[in-house]
């Protein structure tokens, strides 16, 4: 479909009319010194300009940090277990970065293949994602290294590209995207402009340019590379930050919370970086030290998930490396694992 043009003020008005019609807008806003996705009343509050990378992706709107998956009650009549209601809001995510939107490709495969996680799936079904092409890649960014680009469309329903200070190019990618413009098609103007030029310029600004998109077998061969994993394990503090800021990390725990007579069972975010994640009750741990746990995170992203689902699990947002308190950078790790074995290192 040829791209259209929309005036920013018209887009804001359109989004606000959707909000008035009952949809919930979610967009980056500044809070406490950085940007985070929040529900917003007015689309003009959305911070979607170039170079703005929210601290977290919008993952938690589809896969919350903690959610009840059932309720229980123990009465004189016995045990009752009840399903929890799933009637999620209709969400419009405005201002997703293309890398974050691409994380949905990963989460969709994980949560809806074989067995469908109804909590994720019901929210996903009611979510429309409007990405904004990324014209100012940041130092930590490496989307092009994992087969994506500043205008990647995976996971998005609409891709916007800021083409002038007061207008966006609009690329409607899916039926869901189309529905947002239903009855408002007149706001979309014909244009002969394309995003090619600005996207090429953005790609040129990308500082990290490895090729990590087809490395699943190469990376796997680095499994026994103690030089790589040992060093990571010594630095890692086991804080879990990398998993929590990651758009695609999806490990979760299941715990019961409540009293002896009533409560809920919850799904909570977890991390493969935590010792407890794999510790058996017997004391045995298949990943006994932090080195194996650091290896697991990298291997899962660049090899295991790809072996299983055919897609690299890392979208190249660079958050984990940028925010890690001890500077562990998954990009450097993956580049190291994908490169030839250093001489003199025994397997």
């Amino acid at each position: 479909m040829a791209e259209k043009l929309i005036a920013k003020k018209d887009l804001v008005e359109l989004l606000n009319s959707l909000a008035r019609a009952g949809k919930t807008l979610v967009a980056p806003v500044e809070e406490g010194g950085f940007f985070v996705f929040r529900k917003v009343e007015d689309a003009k509050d959305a911070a979607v300009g170039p170079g703005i990378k929210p601290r977290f992706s919008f993952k938690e709107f589809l896969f919350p940090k903690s959610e009840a998956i059932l309720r229980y009650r123990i009465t004189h009549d016995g045990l009752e277990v009840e399903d929890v209601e799933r009637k999620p809001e209709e969400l419009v995510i405005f201002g997703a970065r293309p890398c974050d939107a691409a994380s949905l490709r990963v989460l969709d495969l994980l949560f809806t293949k074989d067995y469908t996680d109804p909590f994720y799936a019901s929210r996903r079904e009611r979510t429309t994602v409007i990405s904004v092409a990324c014209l100012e890649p940041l130092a930590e960014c490496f989307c092009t290294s994992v087969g994506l680009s500043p205008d990647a469309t995976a996971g998005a329903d609409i891709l916007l590209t800021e083409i002038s200070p007061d207008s966006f190019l609009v690329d409607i990618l899916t039926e869901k995207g189309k529905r947002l413009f239903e009855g408002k098609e007149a706001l979309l103007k014909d244009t002969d402009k394309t995003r090619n030029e600005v996207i090429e310029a953005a790609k040129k600004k990308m500082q990290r340019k490895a090729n990590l998109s087809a490395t699943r077998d190469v990376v796997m061969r680095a499994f026994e590379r103690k030089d790589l994993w040992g060093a990571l394990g010594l630095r890692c503090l086991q804080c879990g930050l990398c998993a929590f800021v990651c758009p695609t990390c999806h490990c979760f725990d299941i715990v019961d919370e409540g009293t002896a007579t009533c409560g809920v069972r919850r799904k909570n975010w977890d991390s493969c970086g935590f010792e407890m994640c794999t510790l058996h009750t017997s004391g045995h741990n298949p990943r006994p030290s932090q080195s194996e746990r650091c290896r697991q995170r990298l291997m899962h992203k660049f090899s295991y998930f790809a072996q299983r689902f055919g897609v690299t699990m890392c979208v190249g947002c660079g958050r984990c490396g940028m925010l890690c308190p001890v500077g562990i950078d998954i990009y450097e790790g993956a580049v190291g694992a994908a490169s030839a074995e250093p001489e003199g290192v025994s397997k």
Partner: protein
Amino acid sequence: MSENIYMPSLVTITEITDETPDVRTLKLVFEDERLRTSFTFMPGQFGEYSVVGVGECPFCISSSPTKKGYFECTFKAMGKVTTALRDMEVGDTIGFRGPYGNHFPVDALVGKNIVFIGGGIGMAPVRSLIEYCLDQRDRFAKIFILNGARSIDDLVYKAQMKEWAARSDIQCVKTVDALKEGQTWDGEVGVVPKILEKFAPSAENAVAIVCGPPIMIKFTLISLQKLGFSTDNVITTLENKMKCGLGKCGRCNVGPYYVCKDGPVFTAAQLSALPQEF
């Protein structure tokens, strides 16, 4: 509303058997009458058992699907949930999700000699398959059972062992690592691999099913190799910490494989090709 894959069905404990001081077998019956007849599984599959309010834990179904109307699990009281489960009584209700995972390749066992080897609580999945085979005895050739434990007290399924030993169409051996002073015992004394080599079941047209603690598995695989078993004909089960049992929660993987979905049953040949992280 879409189906909630995390919802357990309620099952009632109808019988409790103390196998050892810390291992129990629970006989379980679905509260939902339709499930009592429609529930099916295969030997080797597992479930998530929950003491609601405490949590869930995964272990195999230890009875055979040929026994209808109920199923059993055998567990050792080790952590929070299994301890709470141990404290349950006949008539109490627990949650169950399953069956999950793959199963023993029962069709490939037809016509074969089968060597069953279990150590400690590892006998639980083996028992499911033994009963399955015994209930269709003529489909399988020779059956050899070796059940080992640290001590006489720790030997599970003593009642079943008695029944199996009484049959003329099975060779049934029990062994303990050591006897306490003054104990009398009508079985073998010695670790499982040693006793296996003593009885030396033939590898000819045979498949070995081995479940037990990692250290036992390690040395039993060596013994089986000595006896001529190829790694394709040695089948075992892996255990890893699990939460969902459905391939979502991300902790039971060994390399790209999830023990909960691709396992828990693997051949020794498959295991040797995996990253050694289990």
